[in-house]
Structure formats: structure tokens, C-alpha cells
């Protein structure tokens, strides 16, 4: 029983590695460092509840002063909308901490994995890894 559960989780893990997340329905994830979690904190400028992906524009304070705009792609309304998210989940002005997979070319962008709001809510935006 235990072994079969272990085998199942290994198989699920292998499946994830082989086929990738549902996020990559229509495109490769080659532009991101997929699986390498990084974190940023800032203020939401705009939350786009759109196909084929949601998109978060975030204003992030720079260490040397001033701010920088970040663009983070996310799963689609087709995926998030069936797992508790809506176009009202995040709003302009919300202070958030975002875990994301960065762009390989180091531009200020990436793919958002989960979002924690200032009132302590954490919204998961990707399937949980099973292995």
C-alpha cells in the first residue's frame, strides 16, 4: 500500500516533468527559469483577468531608490477561475508578496506561482507539485 502510494507519487512527479504544467498549454516555458522560485514585494498596478493568461503588473521599490515596473504572467482564467480565483482576487493598490519563476534574460518579469496579500491571504496560482 505504502509502496504503491510511493510509486503513484513518483509517477505523478515523472508525469509533471515529462509534460509540464497545464500553464504551458499554448507555449513553451523556455523563457522562464521554470521551478526556480524567487520572491518580490510591491504594489499591484493592474491585474489583467484575460486569456490566454492572466497578467500582473507590479510596482516594485528599487534598492537604490525609485521604483521599477514588473510584468508577471500567470495561469489563465480557464484554470484559475475553476480553482477559487476571480477577476476580483487582486486589485490595483494591493500590497503583495509574489513568488515567481524569473525570466532567463533577467528582464523584470516572470511567471507568478503564489501571491500573499497584506491581510495574510496566500493564493496558489499553480498546481501543487506532487513529487
Amino acid at each position, binding site marked *: 500500500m505504502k509502496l504503491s502510494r510511493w510509486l503513484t507519487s513518483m*509517477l505523478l512527479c*515523472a*508525469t*509533471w*516533468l*515529462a*509534460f*509540464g*504544467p*497545464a500553464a*504551458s*498549454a*499554448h*507555449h*513553451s*516555458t*523556455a*523563457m*522562464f527559469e*521554470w*521551478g526556480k522560485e524567487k520572491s518580490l514585494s510591491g504594489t499591484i498596478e*493592474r491585474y*489583467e483577468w*484575460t*486569456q*490566454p*493568461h492572466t*497578467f500582473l*503588473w507590479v510596482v516594485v521599490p528599487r534598492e537604490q531608490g525609485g521604483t521599477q515596473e514588473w*510584468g508577471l*504572467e500567470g495561469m*489563465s*482564467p*480557464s*484554470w484559475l*477561475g*475553476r480553482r477559487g480565483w476571480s477577476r476580483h482576487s487582486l486589485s490595483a493598490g494591493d500590497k503583495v508578496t509574489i513568488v515567481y519563476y524569473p*525570466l532567463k534574460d533577467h*528582464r*523584470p*518579469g516572470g511567471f507568478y506561482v503564489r501571491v500573499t496579500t497584506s491581510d495574510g491571504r496566500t493564493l496558489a496560482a499553480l498546481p501543487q507539485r506532487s513529487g
Partner: protein
Amino acid sequence: MSRTPISVGGLALACVIFCLSACGSQSTPPAAQSAAPPPAAPASPYAALAKLPDWSGVWEPAFAPRPAAGAAAPAPPKLTPAYAAQYAKFQEKNRKTPGLNFVSEVASCVPPGVPQSMQEPYPIEFLFTPGRVTILIETYSLVRRIPTDGKPAPADPDPTYQGTSVGHWEGDTLVVETSAILPETSPLNGINGHSAQFHVTERMRLVQPDLLEITTTRTDPAVFVEPYTTTADYRRHRDWKIMEYVCQQNNHDALDAHGNAAFSLKHQPGE
């Protein structure tokens, strides 16, 4: 309280009287029975739909193809040399970096063709009308029209993304034959392109009350050394609705000028 039994009794009595009078009015006098019966109305073509299995609700594709019974993983396809090289490159990328590594025009909102359009991550829906099954695919908002009226496929249809399909029912299994699929579409994840001979046979049936199985066989002598069959599962969600999906709405992932994966940080018009 005391009036309730009386009113119920009165209602029951009224019903009995109504039923007796209604039955009486419908009983035909013996003389009338010998008269010619009115011509029978032709059976509605919709009546035949009642014999079909219940595929209502929407169907979410499972994450990955299911291995054949007893197999640890889906069997790899046997490919001709040119396509084998392309597929090996894709497999090598998958080994090196997790995530989906397949780069195609689909990233630029060009829709997938059959059968890949059936393997997108978002749900599909079946509509049964007389002599036809229609499949609505949420991803890319695609439609497949599958006549099941017994007429043969047209002789020389124009190639299209979803091809030209003809279907028939074998008991509770829908069998769909599709050809004339645009040759620039992907016949299998990891392969771009196929010949005009590409042909797809799909067998669709319920294997559990809320689990639909689709077995897909791909035939194309230019790509596959022998027909390649995979099986995919779809889980029923009776309370889901198909959502609108317009890929051009806010796509940041169009391929670059060299056909490589890219990511745009440009704001969409209107922002």
C-alpha cells in the same frame, strides 16, 4: 389545521372526477375505431437522440496520456528518420529542463489541429443533434462538426485545422475518422508538421459514469512507421461552463522573428 384534511379530501375527489371525465372523453366509441386512422406523424429525428449515451456536462482532459494497461509509460512512437530526429531533440530538451519545451506557432495564437486540439488543458463539450455530433473546445474556442448521418466524407475537402470528420456510433462508442488536416499542424506533442495523408481515428466512450476515454490513432506514412495510438481520459464536470477563450486578448508569448519562444513585456493596447 382542522380544514386541511377537508381541503385535501376535496382536492382528491375533484381529481378523481376530473380523471374519470377525462378518461371517458378519450375512450373511443366502437364505431369510430373502424374509420381510417389519421396518418402517423413522422418520427422526429430528435427521438433517436434518446438512445445515445449521456455525455452532458463538460469534460476536462486528464493531465497526461494514460499508459496502456500494464505499461509503465505511454509507448513511444515509431517515426521515420526526419521526424525521429525532431522528436529526439524535443525529448532531450524535456530531460534537461522540466516544463513543456515544445515550440510551435500555437504560442502565437495559431490554433492546434486535430488531434492536438483535443489535448489542450481546458474542457470540451459534446452536443448531440440529429445526424451530427459537435465538439466545442474551450482552448482557442474551436468547433469540430462531425456528421453521423451515414453520408460519406466529401471527395476532396480543403485542408483545415480541425480537418473533415465523419462519425458513426458502434453501440455507445463514437468512432470519428478525420482527414484533410492542414499539414503545418502538429500530429503529436514534439512534432511539427505532417503530410496530406495524415489520418486520425478516434474512439470515444464512457469507461466510468464520469470518465470518458478517447483512443486516438494517428496514421501518416511520412511521419509514423506504423499507426501510433494513445489513450486519454476526460473527467466530467456537470457544473462547469465552457468559458470564452480568445488567444489574441492578451498574449505575451508569441514566437520571435526566428521562431523561438519569447516573452513580451509590452502593455496591451488600451492600457
